[in-house]
Each structure stands twice: as C-alpha cells, then as structure tokens.
C-alpha cells in the first residue's frame, strides 16, 4: 500500500498564533483516516492547507508520492483529485440539488465556453452526459427525486449528503470530510457512518475526516491522528488512541488521564 497524501512537517501561523505546528501525517491509499482533537486544535486549518484555501508557512504536502500540492491554487488541487466538504454546510444555496452536482463536475468538463452559443455537438453531448451523471450521483447518495429542489430547502441530513455528492462529482481520489455527522441524531449518524464506509468500499475513494463523534471515529477509521494546539499528540489505530493518556488529557484536562487510569484499573 502506498501513501496517497503525505503531509510533512507543515506549519501555519496566523500572526502570533500557530494554528498548525510542525504537523505530519501520511494517508494510506484506500483507507479511512480521521483527525480528531478538541475545538480549536487546528483540524479545519489543516484541511484548508491541504485544499489550498491557505498557503503553508513551512513544510510540504505531497499528493500521490510526487505531486507537491501545497501553495497551489484551490481549483488546481481539486483538479488533481482532492475534494472536500465543509463543517458548516456550504452548498450553493439558491441552486437546485442537480445544479450543485453539475458545478461539482467542473474538472471533468472540457467544452469551450462559447460553444454554448451555437450548441456544438461536443457541448450538447457533454451537458447531457453531465446531467445523467449528476442524476446518478443524486440517486447514489439517496436523494432520488429531489434534484429540482433548491439545496437550501433540503433537510439537514440531505444537505450533508448533497455536499458529499457534489464533492464526489469530480471523481476525486481523496475526499476530505469536515465533521460529516455534525448536528445529526444517532439514526442519521449511523446512516452517514455506513454511507462513508460504502464510499470507500464501492468507489475506492480514500477518506480523511474530521469528526467529533467518537463512536463514528472508532467504528470506521483505520488510522487516527490526534491534534491539540496545532501539533500532533498521537497517531495510531482506534484501540491505541483510546488508551493513550495524552489524548485523554487533551480532551478531559490535565489529571484526568491518571484519574481514568485508576478508575479503569
């Protein structure tokens, strides 16, 4: 197995604040990985660095062994095959569900803009195919029949799914999910968990997610990195992380780890 993404000693500072501090992580191809950590640990900043929303101050981010993707424009990173969803859903609110997915297909479309004026054969075919594909993706995420709905009018869970469908539309190799189950009830969370697993198993997409729901993280992720104050404090399989005293300390506060140990012992 090879690494699809290598984050090497990346640092990002905002003024005096070090949001990400000398952080490294290797994402294995076709795996489900998670980044966890308390609020403000720098997890979303890490995502923003990988997807080019921010530029790195130090370190490098390498995609597929040899493509450096730090400090590249966001749209190019998407074209490389990395897409993401957002912590607070950021759909194109006043566009329909289908239109959202169509926009997601951007990197796969090649017709020249002016072809639309005389409706060249290439343009017409490409649009028809794109629409078909969008419909297929909509069904894939379980939103059959909601294609014409405005995305803002969809229920919360459906919006999350639509955002994933939009991210999938460009046929990414690596999908970054920023808190995919935030604000969901246990039922919806369970569905989403199965759905994420399904994405990896069926489509072979590598998944890196930020998640606060420990049940989800422990259930499906194969590798977990724990962030606190921008630095990596632990890394490993779910089992190892669960019993790591530094992780417990980061979440529950100094002293809690020893307390817990005595309880479990």
């Amino acid at each position, binding site marked *: 197995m090879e690494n699809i993404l290598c984050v090497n000693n990346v640092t990002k500072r905002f003024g005096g604040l070090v949001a990400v501090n000398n952080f490294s992580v290797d994402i294995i191809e076709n795996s489900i990985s998670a980044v966890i950590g308390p609020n403000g640990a720098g997890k979303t900043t890490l995502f923003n660095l990988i997807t080019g929303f921010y530029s790195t101050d130090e370190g490098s981010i390498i995609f597929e062994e040899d493509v450096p993707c730090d400090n590249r424009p966001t749209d190019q990173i998407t074209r490389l095959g990395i897409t993401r969803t957002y912590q607070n859903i*950021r759909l194109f*609110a006043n566009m329909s569900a289908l239109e959202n997915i169509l926009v997601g297909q951007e990197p796969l479309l090649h017709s020249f803009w002016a072809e639309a004026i005389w409706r060249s054969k290439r343009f017409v075919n490409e649009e028809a195919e794109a629409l078909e594909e969008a419909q297929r993706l909509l069904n894939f995420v379980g939103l059959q029949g909601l294609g014409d709905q405005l995305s803002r009018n969809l229920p919360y869970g459906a919006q999350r799914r639509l955002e994933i469908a939009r991210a999938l539309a460009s046929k990414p190799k690596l999908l970054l999910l920023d808190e995919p189950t935030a604000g969901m009830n246990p039922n919806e969370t369970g569905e989403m968990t199965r759905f994420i697993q399904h994405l990896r198993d069926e489509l072979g997409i590598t998944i890196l997610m930020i998640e606060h729901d420990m049940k989800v993280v422990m259930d499906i992720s194969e590798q977990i990195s724990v962030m606190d104050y921008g630095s990596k404090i632990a890394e490993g399989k779910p089992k190892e992380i669960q019993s790591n005293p530094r992780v417990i300390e980061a979440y529950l506060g100094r002293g809690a780890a020893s307390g817990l140990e005595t309880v479990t012992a």
Partner: protein
Amino acid sequence: MNIKKTYRDAWNTGWTAGIVALSISALGLAELFAKRNIVSGVITMGQVMVFIVPIVMAYNFTKNLSMEQRKTGPLFGAVIGATTAIPLVLLIIASTLFNIRDIFVNVSPSLIELLTFGQENAYLGGLLLLVSMALLSYLSAYTHQLPEKIKRSLFTGLITILLVGMFSEILTERIRSIFGAIFGSSVGSAIVRFLFKSKAIQSIPAIVVFAIATYVGYRKIPKTEEEKNKSKRAFIVDGKVQWKTVIPLAVLLLILPLLLGTYLSEVTNNVGIYILMGLGLNIVVGFAGLLDLGYVAFFAIGAYTMAVLTSTGPLGLFGMSFWLALPICVIVAALAGVMLGIPVLRMRGDYLAIVTLGFGEIISRLAISDMLKPYVGGAQGILQIPKPSIGSLVFTKPEVLYYVVLAGVLLALFVSWRLRDSRLGRQWMAMREDEDVAEAMGINLMKTKILAFSIGAAFSGLAGAIFASKLTSIFPHSFNVLISINVLSLIIVGGIGSLPGVIVGAAVLIGLPELLREFAEYRLLMYGLLLIVMMLAKPEGFVPSEVHKRELHATDEDFVAEAGD
C-alpha cells in the same frame, strides 16, 4: 381582534398617504400633469396622481387585514381616504389665508383649483376633496371583497383607460397616420375627431374602451400554476420551438417601425440601446454577481472606437464603413473588459463597486482630457460620424436604424440566454453564491470573472457603437456616471438576472420618461421613488428571474418546506 388598533393603523396609514399626496402636490408634480388629460374634461393625470395614493393604500391595507376584519375593510378604507385628505385640506386653507408660495413655489392657484375641483370657497372645496377621497378609498377597499374575476376585469379596464388616456397624444397621431394611410387622410382625421378631443380621449369612447377592456379582462381565464410556468418559456416548450408564438412576434418586430412612426421609433431605438447595455450589465451583475458601477466606460469605449474608425471629420483616422467598424468596436470593448477584470480579480462586493466606479470615471476623464484631445477631441467630441449604410441606402431615419438596434438586441439576448443555460452560466451562478467554494469546485475564478466582464463589456461596446453612429457626433458629457446608474437601475427594476426583466426595465425607466416629457425635470426623483418602492414592495423586480425569486422569498418557502416535513 382589536378593532380600535386597526382604526389606529388605518389612521396612521392615512397620514402616510396624506404626506405622500401632499409631497406630490407641493413638489409641483400634480400640477405639471394636470395639463395631461386622461379623459377629456373629466379627469387629468394630475388628479390621478393625487388620488391614486389613498386608493392604493386603502386597497393594500384591506389586503393585509385578518379575515374577520375584512368585512369592515371599506370603513377602514374610508378612514384612510379621509385622513389622506387632511394635509391637503390644510394646504388649501393655508393657501387662502397666507401667501405660502414664498416657501412652496409650486403651490399655485391652479394646483388649488385642481384639488378643490374648481370650487371658489376653499372650505367647501376642501370638504369636497375630503369626501371624495374617503369615498374613492371606501370603494377601493370594497373592491377587494369582490370575486377575483370581477376584480381582475375592473383592474384591466382601469389600467387600459389610464394608459390610453396618458398616451392619447401619441395615439392620436398614430391613429391619424395609420388609418390615414389606409383609408385616406379625411377618414383618419374623422376617426381621431370622434375618439379624441384636445389631446385626450372623449367621454363616450372612454366608456366604450373601458367596457371592452373590462370584458376582455373578465373573459380571460386565470392561469393555473402549471400553465404559468409553461407560458414563461412559451417560445420553446420541451425543446421544441413554438412557431405559433414565435412567428407572430417576429412579424410584429419586423413591421413595428411602420406602426410606430418616426418619433416612437426613435424612442424605441433609445430603449433598445439601453436594453443592449442592460443585457451586458446583467451578465456581470445578475449572472456573475460582480457589482460594476463604471459600466458606462465600455459604452464610451465602443462609441469612441466607432467615432475614430468611421468619422469623415478631421479626427476620423480610417474612414471605415459602419459594418466593418462594428465588430472592431465590440472587440475593443471586450478587451477593455479584460483590462478592468484583471486588476479587480481579488476584490469583492463594495471594494469591487468602488474600483469599477473609479474605472468609469477614468475613462470619462480621459475622453475630456487635453492629453487625448488630438485623438478624441476633448470637450468638443468627435463629429461627422456617418450613419450606417448599405450601398446607397443610408440608415438616416429612426425607422430604418431600428433594424440595426433590433439585430443587436436579438443577438445579445440570444447569447445571454445560451450562456446562462450552459456550463459558464453555472460557473457564474456558483461564483455569485459562494466564491471560495466555487473555486474549490475547480472553477477558475480568474477566467470566469474576466469572461463575465468582457462579454458584458462587448454588449455595451456594441450599444456604444450604434449610439455613436445614430447620433453622428459624440461628446464626452454623454458618458457620465448617470448612465451606469440608469443601466443598473433598469436591471434592478426589471429583475436582476432576468432577460425579459431587462427589456421591461428599459421600457419603464427609459421609454416611459421619454413619452411623458413632463417628467424630464423629475426624472431622477421618479427613479429614486420607483427604486425605493420596488425595493419595499417587489425587490425581485417586475419580471424576476427564477433564482432571485427563490432567494428573496426564501423565508416563505422555507416555512412551507418545514411545514411539509
């Protein structure tokens, strides 16, 4: 419900209406329009302007009442009407007691005469005004209870008679010349004499017209939602061109100048040039969401390019023909759009608006500057620009020039429509919704923005080129920031992002003031009023685009969606 509170609301509404009516009178609008008769010797437009205020307010007030209170709606209407009259009555009384013309220059005896229906006694006149306002508002509120069908037919009748009356001067001229051309001039004159008197429709024909319009309004079957949706895309249904609607429209557009005559064709051409600009700005502001306040720059660039390329005067360099110069003008304007696009790429919202405003000013300063005087003539402008011509046929008359404008507008409409429903259209829309996410979807923001700017600029350049050739001389003062504001206003009034909206907006903001020449000095006041009223009552514009309608009424929809869950 609390009846007392509702009466208080009606009283307050009445005062608002009263102040509006007072302003209309004291600003001199009412008197100005008093010269324009609606029905000869019966009502003038000035009276309509004053009375329409409580009538509309009363109707709206009733509309917002709860079901149980609607029964007493007309009474509230009467309260509104009577209250509206109070400030006006005070004005009338004051004008007899003091010489208030020192302050309110426009409060002339003829205004008082208009308000008091020619009564000598101010108190009696004031009472008459109060009673008639109360009565009309009562009726207006009462009509709200009538069945939908009758309401609609009455409305159709009233609007028709108002329009016929307002434009009877033009109608007179057109009827005389059209019927004159077909049946001989004596018949034409006879028809006119029968229908109109002193530039207004006569009472009996007015009643006939009202009756016909009311009947037509009554017979028109209300559309279901589905039919409405279909008729919106009436030209193409399910991918098939509807020749039944397209052919009559095409024929009408082709013979339009014959029906309109010289003056109206000229007005139509001006409207057409603004439609062209509106369509361009609509791409930038409506589709891509980039607020451009310096749009006049591209209009100026198109016009000056045309002037320099074709003028036979001393400043004309090439003496090209109109047709050869036209594509060059469009290309030059589009390049200017790219030039503006590059530096403002990273700017958003307010900053973008300010920079584009600056760009517009720079171009108009350059046009007037000494530096460029040897090339563009400074304040004297460029003269002797030839009109378009084919062989020996020179497009001198507005009726012929109309076809050039029409071709330009149709082309721009077609391009806008095709681009909107394409990949690029989606990119623009996504960029408008959320720039960061759009970029993260793989959209190249730079390319997408520059395309919006340059296509928008190209349309404006085309408009400018036709404008220069139409006027045969251009001056830098024609290209001021007001044009940018006008174009922006017209797309807002029509409905941002909506193609038919641009046409309606241009017709209302550019066409109407030309037809109602009295407006001239109140034009900007009217613009402001219209924009405020539109923003309050119909922020999505006259012909809203689907997207904006959803956006602005999202709260209602969300509510429905939630209720449906």
